[in-house]
């Protein structure tokens, strides 16, 4: 196979990692929402943790995107 084609396929495969980030962010916000509806008085206190979890989950997916970009532009 040509190297250029393999590079594009590899970059596309690496970007699949973002699916995991989508699942993670959905889980975090979904669980926060269901917990906040059950106990609204405790919701405000956990808001920083929600943002922290969101950022951490998003970042793990972006690692995959970095791999894709490295394949495309650095090799």
């Amino acid at each position, binding site marked *: 196979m040509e190297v250029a084609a393999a590079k594009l396929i590899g970059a596309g495969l690496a970007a699949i990692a973002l699916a995991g980030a989508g699942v993670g962010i959905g889980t975090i916000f979904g669980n926060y929402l269901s917990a906040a509806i059950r106990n609204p008085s405790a919701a405000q206190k956990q808001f920083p943790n929600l943002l922290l979890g969101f*950022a951490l989950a998003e970042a793990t997916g972006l690692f995959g995107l970095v791999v894709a970009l490295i394949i495309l532009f650095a090799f």
Partner: protein
Amino acid sequence: MANPMQQFEVKTIGPKIEIGNFDVSFTNASLFMVITVAFISIFFVLATQKKSLVPSRLQLLSEMAYEFVAKMISETAGSKARPYFPFILTLFLFVLFCNMIGMIPYSFTVTSHIIVTFALAIFIFIGVTIIGFVKHGFGYLKLFVPSGVPVVLMPIIVIIEVISYLSRPVSLSVRLFANMMAGHTMLKVFGGFVISLGIVGGWLPLGFSVALTGLEILVAFLQAYVFAILTCIYLNDALNLHH
């Protein structure tokens, strides 16, 4: 469409200076770092010039920044982390303003370069490790041995703990860099869609661009917050060893 990675290009401003084999010329990245630091300094000097009991708007902003970081440190790392407050505040403001100034069109995002974020992260990592060893001596190595683990599992757990400790600077720096670079690339790609679809179909990606800009401003703040709070968590590990 122009290459979406073009915006991250580092260009030399002024004469090319070399010391030994290193190129130390003044670039657009250094220019924007200088702008960021100057902006923060001028803002705080102006805001705290006229101190009054009923604060002006500027003074209120600076007090909000101070209280935000002070609360973050006391909640995550406890009272022992109090001496490190100036460092965390500086770190948070530097990352925040680098991200925010990067959101201005045609400006340059300093934090979208891995070397900048990695330099910040490796200094935090080395500093925290030194603080840990100074405070606890070799007892700091207990960090790698969690209590209540069966003896059989111990070698594996210790290896995993050591690896996860050593990968801290990498994950800390790559998180910030990847978020910034991915966000700006995405904005550029959607901007390219607006141009290529023209006046007929360009309105949809234009709307997306506006929404994404809002998201990116949120991410710019969040990543600065996460960078600072993770530094606090690492400091907490070094200051209050509880394993």
